[in-house]
């Protein structure tokens, strides 16, 4: 779905649907932004403009919240989301070298997508399975006890034409 080409009335309907249940509730902006990101995989600027109007808040306030929290994205992420756990256990067991290797292989930094939009790399805090450290996930799939030299093989599973 290309949000830039979506009809403004469709956008307003979606924004209304997401905002209405939170009407007048304190702290609603964060909940609304969560739902927007769940629906669109990021928070598109066109949507933010409509949310600002709907909630009668300045656009700048929305961006302050979006950029304060690591969770929200301003750009659509690549198709395969690679999340590297940097929780304490994973960190100590070598997660930084995984991030480094992923960065080299993909040519991006955490928080960025590859140019072909196939991968998005992010760093996350504890995934809740410290016994498997260091851990990374691609989409819903968990890879445990990962060593940097395994990274190219893991990525290959998700490259164009790969048999999954």
């Amino acid at each position, binding site marked *: 779905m290309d949000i830039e080409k979506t009809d403004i009335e469709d956008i307003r309907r979606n924004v209304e649907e997401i905002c209405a249940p939170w009407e007048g509730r304190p702290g609603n902006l964060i909940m609304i932004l969560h739902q927007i990101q769940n629906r669109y995989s990021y928070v598109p*600027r066109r949507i*933010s*403009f409509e949310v600002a109007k709907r909630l009668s808040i*300045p*656009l*700048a*306030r*929305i*961006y*302050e919240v979006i*950029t*304060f929290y690591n969770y929200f994205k*301003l750009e659509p992420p690549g198709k395969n989301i690679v999340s590297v756990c940097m929780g304490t256990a994973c960190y100590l067991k070598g997660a930084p070298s995984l991030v480094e290797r992923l960065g080299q292989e993909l040519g991006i930094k955490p928080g960025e997508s590859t140019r072909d939009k196939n991968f998005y790399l992010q760093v996350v805090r504890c995934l809740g399975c410290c016994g498997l450290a260091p851990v990374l996930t691609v989409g819903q799939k968990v890879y445990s006890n990962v060593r940097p030299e395994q990274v190219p093989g893991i990525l290959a599973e998700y490259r164009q034409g790969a048999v999954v």
Partner: protein
Amino acid sequence: MVKAVINSIPVEVPENTSILDAAKTVGVNIPILCKHPDLHASAACGICVVKMKGSQKMPRACCTPIEEGMDIVTHDPEIVSVRKTVLNLILSNHPNSCLTCGRNTQCELQTALADFGIREEPYDKLLCSAPLDSTTGTIVLDPPKCIKCGRCVTVCQEMQNVWALSFLERGIETRISPAGDISLGDSPCVRCGQCSAHCPTGAIVEKDDTEKVWAALQNPAKHCVVQIAPAVRVTLGEHFGFEPGVNLSKKIYTLLRRMGFERVFDTNFGADLTIMEEAAEFVQRFVHGKSVLPLITTCCPSWVDFMEKMHPDMIEHFSSSKSPHEMLGVLAKTYYAEKQGLSPADIEVVSVMPCTAKKFEIHRSREMSASGFQDVDTSVTTRELSRMIRQAGIDFANLPDGECDPPLGDYSGAGTLFGTTGGVMEAALRTAAFMITKEKLPRVEFENVRGLKGVRETSVTVAGKEVRIAVAHGLANVEYVIEKIRKAKKDGAPLPYHFVEVMACPGGCIGGGGQPYGVTDELRAKRARGLYSDDKNLPRRCSYENPYIQQLYEDYLGEPLSKKAHELLHTTYKPRPMYQR
């Protein structure tokens, strides 16, 4: 009242006074970089830490209310050492470009570092990489120089309700920027420059146009004329050792002549003319029912920009009269040019304004080129003029008095009042009353529109009819007035006001974004007093009494709101998007 002790000095202050303010009352200055008297405390900078006897903590004086019986130490070697560490940390994120910075010698951070004798940098540099933003053409944002004190953000969001600036990201990534890292020129910024007037460093400064002025003055083909705004005469002296509010019009006339201007005009004359047109508009609407009420003043370019972006439904209420500075500009290139046998192409009009937004106003629409050329070529702020005086080696303080030039110089007391909140209203009422009754007012002062209260609602009686008025300054205060008008219109209720004055900057132009630094309400009051005493001491205090105004209408314009007046002195407004991107 609360009794406490600061550095062994007994202190008694009202409840909820911060330790910072309490200390000031007994002559103790606690250093601070984030708290500004106009703004609430944010505890952002961390150098105002103090000690309290009986506590291990070091609270921040700016946001800790003093309490009964507190025994506070504000300065000892340990506190000073903590402050130095904090300053060193700030310095580690700050470029060392003082010598080429717009705030050099006037920077609060530079002063603090000098005061604390910081001689080396113990920490590695880590600088913000966001680019310089000069897209508004009025102010320049230089993100690496920002110390994240938050003053500009509070000013932009709370004082002005513009929300162009915000804090994006957090921690070391924190930066001031419009939503989505767009440029300020594409943001809702109304160019009021209050951010630059409150910034403690050179992170936001006025765009410097002094080179353009020097170039014009050096160009033998150009006939350079200059005008000074009402509010500049009572503030420029602050840069040269005068008390705030001292009226230096006559020294400034001499100064500008020595700088090389062929004619020295006064925006106060333009203000008298604006009053003639605006008061005539008011009379048309109020007495003759032509077009809607209330009439809203439009001398302030930031307010115009704000209204076009945020409240375009108010356009029909806007006075079409141009600001005094634009009226003077167009007359310099038409009326004056014709009298002198000069081509407007050869005339360079420079304006000295208290304002950053005037740099935008001079080309905001094609009506600002009513002479066929841009009516005002360059606009510089009070701060820029100060620099030019020093560059020119002029001993400003000891200049002899001079006079301004006819036919665009002499002004009435009403004209000079334009520089302060309430002044345009008072000036307009003086002339409107005369236009309605054809009689001189027995008393020209309208004291109830004066003062620094954010919104002043009152009424006056003109020819037996009540005129309900509102005066608002500081853009956040405008919302209340606009909402009231909007609601009355929607409900079909009687109008809350007939006449509304708005100025974007707190205090009006005397507190403008291009004025000398360090503004507080106390300073605003002093500057305003300077204008009120100028008014009081003038032989003519109403715009219609100005003989040069009378002559201008006789010789050139006909009468207020004539066809010619409309061509030259009036403008139009249109809705504009808040965000260009």
